[in-house]
């Protein structure tokens, strides 16, 4: 028995929307364990989101429509990205909507409007966050593109489903180009999702914060949408990494058995991926803002090395 492609599409969409908070909860549990703290349950993010949805909204008196529109847009764009990435199967009717480059640019919209919302009220914190976020993004983008370039060389395509299909059928081998690209991708993904050592997602009122500074003024359902979209973005970046570097197990069609297997493998890979991220986050301290060019520069260098390795060795 097999599912219709549109059913898979819907399933995946619901899965990402529904499981993203659980994944964020899992990351939090691991992090608490690693740092010797008591962890809240895996369901805590759901409770947070529900609580925020029920709350009233407090808006600054000079907030414009940009400020009120941005949370919905951020959530909407992230949800659209969720429908494009192959999580369980490559048989997705909407996956052709965007290739990797377009997908990265979709997150560009999220960033652009979040930064605008940060400047809307006119407080120093918001402007600071926006300014820093755009600087980090500017330096991360070339490295991201080089990593994508290297991966697309290996599969001769920048379309995600095609990458998964080609790489999933290939025999397992450690390819130096992909190893370099993976290292670069992990570094950039940490920057794009605002994790340590680039930004600290746990801060709420510190001079070093970046993403939290932009959304400092938000409350109620607006904040809930931001939080949920943030969790989805984190999951999507993991899914992107899985699709590009470890696609084994993602089903080629809509066969139920294959889908169940793919789901099991996905949960396993996400759990392991979260563990790696938590180890990085626990082992490192947040960097100074002006150390970041070196960090992102090394990511760029790694990705370029990957490309050169491909041309020379493969």
């Amino acid at each position: 028995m097999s599912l219709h492609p549109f059913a898979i599409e819907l399933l995946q969409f619901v899965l990402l929307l529904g499981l993203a908070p659980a994944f964020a909860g899992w990351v939090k549990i691991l992090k608490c364990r690693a740092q010797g703290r008591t962890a809240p349950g895996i369901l805590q993010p759901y409770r947070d989101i529900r609580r925020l949805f029920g709350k009233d909204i407090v808006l600054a008196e000079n907030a414009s429509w940009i400020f009120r529109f941005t949370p919905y847009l951020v959530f909407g764009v992230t949800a659209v990205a969720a429908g494009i990435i192959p999580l369980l199967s490559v048989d997705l009717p909407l996956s052709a909507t965007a290739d990797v480059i377009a997908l990265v640019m979709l997150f560009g919209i999220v960033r652009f409007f979040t930064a605008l919302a940060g400047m809307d009220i006119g407080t120093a914190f918001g402007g600071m966050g926006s300014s820093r976020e755009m600087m980090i993004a500017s330096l991360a983008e070339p490295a991201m593109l080089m990593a994508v370039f290297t991966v697309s060389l290996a599969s001769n395509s920048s379309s995600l489903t095609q990458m998964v299909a080609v790489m999933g059928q290939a025999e397992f081998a450690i390819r130096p180009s992909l190893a370099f690209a993976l290292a670069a991708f992990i570094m950039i993904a940490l920057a794009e999702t605002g994790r340590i050592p680039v930004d600290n997602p746990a801060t709420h009122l510190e001079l070093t914060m970046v993403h939290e500074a932009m959304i400092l003024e938000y409350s109620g359902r607006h904040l809930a949408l931001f939080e949920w979209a943030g969790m989805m973005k984190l999951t999507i970046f993991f899914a992107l990494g899985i699709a590009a570097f470890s696609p084994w197990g993602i089903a080629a069609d809509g066969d139920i058995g294959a889908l169940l297997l793919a789901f099991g493998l996905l949960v396993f890979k996400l759990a392991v991926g979260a563990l790696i991220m938590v180890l990085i986050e626990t082992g490192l301290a947040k960097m100074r803002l002006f150390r970041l060019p070196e960090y992102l520069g090394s990511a760029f260098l790694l990705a370029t090395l990957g490309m050169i390795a491909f041309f020379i060795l493969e």
Partner: protein
Amino acid sequence: MPASLDIAGFAVLLLLALAVLAPLLSSVRTIQIPLAFSLSAVASLAAVVAGIMTVASGSVASATISIGLPGLPFHLRLDPLAGFFLVVIGLMGLFVSIYSIGYVKGYGGVRSMTQMICFYTLFLAGMLLVVLADDAYFFLVAWELMAAASYFLVMYEDEKGENRRAAFLYLLIAHVGALAILLAFGVMAGQSGAPGFVGYTFNAMRSAQLSSGWAAAAFFLAFFGFAAKAGVIPLHVWLPEAHPVAPSNISALMSGVMLKTSIYGICRFAFDFIKVFPWWWGGVVLALGLLSAVLGVLYALMQHDLKRLLAYHSVENIGIILIGLGLSMIFAAFQMPTLAALALVAALYHTLNHAVFKGLLFMGAGAVLHATHVRNMEEMGGLIHRMPWTAPLFLVGCVSISALPPFNGFVSEWLTFQAFLLSPALPHPLLKLLIPLGAALLALTGALAAACFVKVFGVVFLGQWRGHQKPERIHEVGPSMLVGMLLAAISCLLLGIFPTWVIGWLDTIPEQLCGAKLAESAGKFGWLWLTPIAHERASYSGPVVFIGILVVVAVTWLLLHVHATSVSRVPIWDCGFVKLTPRMQYTASAFSMPIRRVLGFLFAVREQVEIVPHTNHPALPGSLQYRLRIRDRFWNWLYAPQGDAAYWVARQVGRLQQGRIQIYLLYSFVTLIVLLVFLG
């Protein structure tokens, strides 16, 4: 049905007639402005129609008019490439003409409207003629008409010294460029072997067989000349001077359209006249394109004059167009017509897109200027509350130029990226390794452009008013200006959502110039999916992105408003510090500070902080003065030495001038003797 060349001819004649008739109406200004600009809108529309028809049918029409030099009548020719640029010029001419009806009223009673209308229509006519011309003489006449008309338009507010200086610099560089183009034509004509003036027709140049050395000489002379007009770094210095001081409707046309005539010229020379060239020509174009793109956007980030910032962004976008052209030339040199077609389409698409969104942004900047009378962004803020219609229209321009889906800038940059991704197919090991680094630079450019436009929109329209005058005096602009901007904004969206139709339409150009079509693969899966080359390679669907975002946003909004929670408006949270003022907001300079610090080595930055002690308590700081000066390094490297040298030579020559009659008589005598010796 009239032929497309006739329609284009009608457009030009209508514009020329307007230039002649405008002075007759100067006494009735209430009629003069609307009539003149609506007629120029009609003429622009005619040009668009002619262009669309030509490109769609792929037809070539030509004609001669028996004026011009004896033996060299004016040749006109309308082929798809010219037709495409007719559309670019006409489309912006249409929007800006509608916008101008409201905009130039701001000069009413202060300045001569006749002068504005005359030069405006001549400027448009000149640009149309540049792309229609089919011989070197007519081309240069049109080119100079365009340059001279725009010079007078830059000089429009000529009581300011700054404007006169900018206009002079513009004229100077335009003429150095024109000289190079003239020489390029000379090389082509001299080598074509055709007798008399026939060599100066473009037809003779198309069939000319040039040796590789002469071909390179002709191409690079022409490229230099066109690059000077387009503002390619390092020939860009006039651009950030001239665009800010011109009236905003003129800046929109100059930046959106006039620069594109140089892209037309480069395409014409490379793909139509010379056709066969080595790959390094494309390499040079690509390298200069990358340089212009990255440095253009970085210089733009450092500006706080709104229009100067936009002018530097024109440098950046011309760079992006040249990247596409350069890639196309490289692919063409290696006999890869499909990839050449892809890169050429990317370049042409970006030409059209940049015209539309940059026109929109300059019109928006004009609206802001019209309302606030300041150009300095540090004195603006919160205009979204005072100008509720201009703000979203300007935002569309910002999103488009930042290459964010689903707007138009994204499509052309994405196509350029696809061309980059296909470069490993090149049979040249060095290019394989180097060209992908260009893709990284393009990504850097895109991200920096987004940073820059967050700054622009955030500082100008969001936050609180920073200026000295009362914000209550600022009002939304009139309907005609809004309509002009609205049409441009709608075009931005449509060009972003329906790329397959646009590519299907302009496919006749790569077919004629590169010998390959793109639309067959690009629109293979219907209009919904853009799949250049093959759908396994890459695909993008503007409509799905647009509708998807729209649907999710609408559904989320509806679900969250079933049980509406209350929204309370409160004063800005000030962290308990009760004296929060608008001066404490992030400024434009503060916003770009991290990038200035990271990439500051590319500029000549001088930062001075001076703490003045308190008068009563010298131990305490009284006030703090911060000075920041950022200079274009190219001015000091390239232009200042030349200026100094010219001045030095002039002074040496000036010694001849003694002011005494005897000396001058002696000069005459010596000259006579020398002439007699040589001629005798």
